[in-house]
């Protein structure tokens, strides 16, 4: 977390938007660059804490290796699973061509 310069400059916002698969408008790039920089400045206060030798905590009520019997059960029929698809062909989702 480097201090000083704006943490979310336009190029970074464009890069993150591409990773996030969101086609931001010009106005949004500007707005989010400002807002996210402010939020990252606020988050930078965590630098004040020494966290050497602190174990990260990903889940507060720690559960490990939850297992169950592998039993075949009834599940959604293909037509139910596909009922909300924006476009479908038979039992498949339809999307624009992925390969040429």
């Amino acid at each position, binding site marked *: *977390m480097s201090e000083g310069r704006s943490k*979310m400059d336009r190029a*970074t*916002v464009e890069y*993150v*938007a591409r*990773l*996030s*698969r*969101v*086609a*931001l*408008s010009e106005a*949004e790039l500007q*707005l*989010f660059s400002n*807002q*996210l920089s*402010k*939020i*990252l400045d*606020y*988050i930078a*206060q*965590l*630098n004040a*804490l020494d*966290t050497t030798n*602190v*174990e*990260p*905590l*990903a*889940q*507060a*009520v720690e*559960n490990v290796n*939850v297992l*169950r019997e592998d039993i075949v059960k009834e599940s*959604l029929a293909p037509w*139910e*699973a596909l*009922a*909300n*698809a*924006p*476009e479908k062909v038979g039992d498949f*989702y339809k*999307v*624009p*061509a*992925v390969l040429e």
Partner: protein
Amino acid sequence: MDLLSATAVEIREAVSSGKVSAREVAKAYLDRIAQVDPKVHAFLYVDPDWSLSAAEAVDKKRAAGKALGALAGVPVAIKDVLCTKGIPTTCGSRILENFKPPYAATCVRKLLAADAVPIGKTNMDEFAMGSSTENSAYGPTANPWDLSRAPGGSSGGSAAAVAAGMAPLALGSDTGGSIRQPAALCGVVGMKPTYGRVSRYGLVAFASSLDQVGPFSRRVRDAARLLSVISGHDECDSTSIQSPVEDYEAALGSIKGLRVGVPKEYFVEGLDKEVEALTRKALGTLERQGAILEEVTLPHTPYAVATYYIVCTAEASSNLARYDGAHYGFRQKGTKDIIELYSQTREAGFGDEVKRRIMLGTFVLSSGYYDAYYLKGLKVRRLIKQDFDRAFEKVDVIAGPTTPTAAFKMGEKSEDPLAMYLCDIFTISAPLAGLPAISVPCGLTSEGLPAGFQIMGKVLGEKTVLSAAAAYEAAAGFDKRPRNLS
């Protein structure tokens, strides 16, 4: 019997003893919604056929002499983040505008199995991201106490529905305060259970290590009953806790000798003077009921909001990757390849706050920033949890204000995301530490706006939290309702 001011427990008794039919109850609430909701906009979906057919099924069951469930004939409003089979579930987002889940959330299934009557789906900040319900793609909800103010959020619709007498009970979800904060601002009871106490199956995911379903009600006993109904292990949610379901209502009792921790970090600058006075008065009430107050320290409290916005956005950016325009929900038309399909669909389908959080979450997880942000956040999360572990060596519950202020004006914070995030400063730690916490109304400010008193407990300490809340409620006797709604 005035059905609109009766408690859930009273309604269930009246229905099961035949004093009133479930259909009459449902009709009374549907009429109230038709009358009041045009002003409040707590509901995104109301379908009299859905509600009345469920009510009629309860009446038939009774006529056939069958045993009735714990919520027989009680109308329950359901936050639109919970999947209802064949009934629209939008999460307050355009991207799910026409989505009808092919299955019901476990908590909804349990509700119906207890003979409750679904009365509608409630408004919310898009994907539960927000503290004012202004981030709904379908327009904001108004606070029933003052229609120019926000009800809080993200479960603002559920809180407002209960406050305005449009439902005696509601379900919400809480990730950083989304049940307790709107409960406080709307003058109702709202509880976030221990992480894993209620199954998250069918709860549309926002931040999976924090999200938890919980009850809204006007009385603590009603919340206890609803929580008993929806709690329990579910093999469809591997994070749900194995320990058996308790009868929380039966556990409500004396708090003589209860040790109540008062965290000094919750009485700081930024806490409104009137809210502070009401909170201190509530602490005094607990003391008069036999509780022992003790100052405790939660030294990492000032870092909780920053930690939360690393953890929740990281998880959200991953969870919301599923909205791709290919499998379900909205699809942007006329895109030429798959990447454009994803990017254009998400640009058009998501609102600003959701985009901001996806971006922030993607950033903190991205190569080169992961250690400095995400890993750092998880380490501070450990420190926050350790604060509670230490405090709970001395005390049974920790109590303080739910929110720093009473309800704010609509639009007041909507242009400044950081100011909005800081509304959750007192509610955000409990989910980071996985703890149960409740907000109960503790009086009105001089402007006539409710304030909430928060009681947090140990992991699976629901009984103790509910007992403390019920004892406070009985002694304080808050029975104010918003006026001028009809």
